[in-house]
């Protein structure tokens, strides 16, 4: 199985960029725990078990990405964590509390930007901020919104209507809206899937930059192997459904803050990439 000379599972791998430094066991507390979860969709032809017996633990401040074949149940897993989809069996805990419904402590960035097109960029962020910080003054709330919009590069577009923004700009607002909620977990379902590759790269940088400051536990679904390596501390590989579970995982020990060029030029990059491609092609 391991034709590449790396150990994918948590352990004492040498950091590739900095070989002197050893990766030690992650001692951070668990932020997200999925325990024995299953998802069964009732269909006219009988029950369809998408996920079964799935275990996942994400440490506080960790960025993980999830890859897997189309239809294997990645979105299902994410929406269950978000509380937007019933959990058929098992339990999901966020910061020790069991998930029962959706809430702003688990911000979601959807594949389509899903901004309210009749609101401005600022209003779209504000509607969430108002929910999370009901006691803040108007000025404070405005400052939070403007801070994040500025961070995602929309400093000059506060008052543009969402419907007047390009797809990429809309998704920037989506990212700002999610971070402005100060969530415990950030859930991203192929947030850049609809964008062209140039915009996609820009937005990956934006996401990493904001994330670097906040270190919010993040789970991102993607189809793009390079994206998963560039962004994540750990890549989760899901098996194909039905009865999908987590097949394998790969630690990405590149140092942060990361820089696209450094990572692409790193001698070990293609080993990681090959490992993931290998998983997907089987």
């Amino acid at each position, binding site marked *: 199985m391991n034709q590449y000379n790396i150990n994918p599972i948590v352990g004492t791998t040498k950091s590739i960029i900095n070989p002197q430094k050893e990766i030690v066991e992650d001692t951070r507390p668990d932020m997200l725990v999925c325990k024995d979860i299953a998802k069964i969709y009732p269909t006219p032809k009988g029950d369809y078990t998408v996920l079964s017996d799935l275990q996942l633990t994400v440490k506080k401040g960790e960025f993980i990405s999830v890859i897997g074949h189309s239809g294997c149940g990645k979105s299902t897993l994410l929406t269950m964590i978000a509380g937007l989809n019933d959990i058929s069996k098992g339990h999901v805990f966020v910061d020790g509390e069991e998930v029962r419904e*959706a*809430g702003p402590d688990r911000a979601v960035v959807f594949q*389509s930007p*899903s901004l*309210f097109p009749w609101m401005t960029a600022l209003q779209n962020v504000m509607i969430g901020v108002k929910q999370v910080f009901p006691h803040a003054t108007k000025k404070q709330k405005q400052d939070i919104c403007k801070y994040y919009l500025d961070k995602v590069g929309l400093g000059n577009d506060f008052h543009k209507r969402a419907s007047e923004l390009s797809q990429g700009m809309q998704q920037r607002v989506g990212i700002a809206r999610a971070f402005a909620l100060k969530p415990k977990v950030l859930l991203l379902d192929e947030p850049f899937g609809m964008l062209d590759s140039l915009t996609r790269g820009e937005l990956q940088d934006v996401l990493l930059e904001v994330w670097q400051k906040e270190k919010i536990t993040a789970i991102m679904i993607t189809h793009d192997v390079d994206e998963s390596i560039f962004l994540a501390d750990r890549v989760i590989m899901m098996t194909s459904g039905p009865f999908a579970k987590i097949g394998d995982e790969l630690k990405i020990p590149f140092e942060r803050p990361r820089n696209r060029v450094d990572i692409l030029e790193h001698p070990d990059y293609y080993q990681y990439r090959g490992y993931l491609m290998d998983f997907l092609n089987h």
Partner: protein
Amino acid sequence: MKDKILQLTGIQSFLSPWVNIFKGEETKKNINILLKSYIFPLLSILLFVLVWHTGATYLYNKEATSKIEKARAERGEAAALEVQNCIYSGEVGCQPNTLPSPAKVWEAYLSLLADHKIISGKKEAFAKKVEKTNAKRAEQGKAAITYTGRPSFVDQIGTSLKTVFAGFLLAAFIAIPIGIIIGLSSTLRTSMNWLIQILKPVSPVVWLLLVFMIVKTLMSDSDMDKSFMISFISVGLCSMWATLVNTSMGVSTVDKDFVNVAKVLKLSIGQNIFKVVLPSSLPMIFTGLRITLSVAWMVLIAIELLAQSPGLGSFVWEEFQNGANDSNAKIIVAMFVIGMIGFGLDRIMMVIQKMMSFNKEVA
């Protein structure tokens, strides 16, 4: 803003080919646009008038011949000749009663306008005459004396517009809230569906009778304008269905992503309705309102005609009953006025509808 209004009303697209031809830009393309959008429609109207004129002339001749023949059969050759002379001399009293020609209709239109001037003059004079008396009456707390003479054609138009507007508002006030409520709950939607489907196709006449039964009993001793009440309520009830159905559709089909965002943000029910559901269904609601207004205008004429309430409908009916020699022409004037007002109302609604839709995709 000015540009936006020009663009939305279609004035810009109306003017731009002219301007461009004048500037000498893309002459050939713009001439084609002009031909297609203005010259051909105008030609088709011209053709319509021509067909109408030919048809009316044929009918006129047919009616005239049969009149002469009838006189000959009943009263002999001399009488027939007399009738014939009378007809061709243009004497008003013995004109054949049939579909009027375009020229006659135009004459009738001018005479209606003249009539309006006379009546407004009378009204003004009357208002001056009773000014002092009315002031006194107002001091004594009595109602003012108002002009009760025959309304002019233009007054009738005003009354109709007032009625249709009241009916339209009533429809909106009933249909939008109910539409929202049943749109939010699929249980309510399925339970109301039959009722709506059964009531929707009911004819305006039946609504009128129903409203008549209720209003007559409810307001037996009120001094409000009963016929106005009856007609505007019936108009509202007939026309509200499109808005009701569209509102509930719009509300029930809010984008799933928006629903999810609202859930993640934990919006309260009120916030959810006013910040998410309503704005996202506004385009659908306004499409419904546009249909409602056009239906309202269409049924209004029939309802006024039946309810004997003042307005264009009763104008048409009175002229028909009246049977004066220019009555038919006046009816056709009314027909065109009704059509053009309907067109105008629809245009206004279209502009509002376009302004309301955030995607700018309304045809």
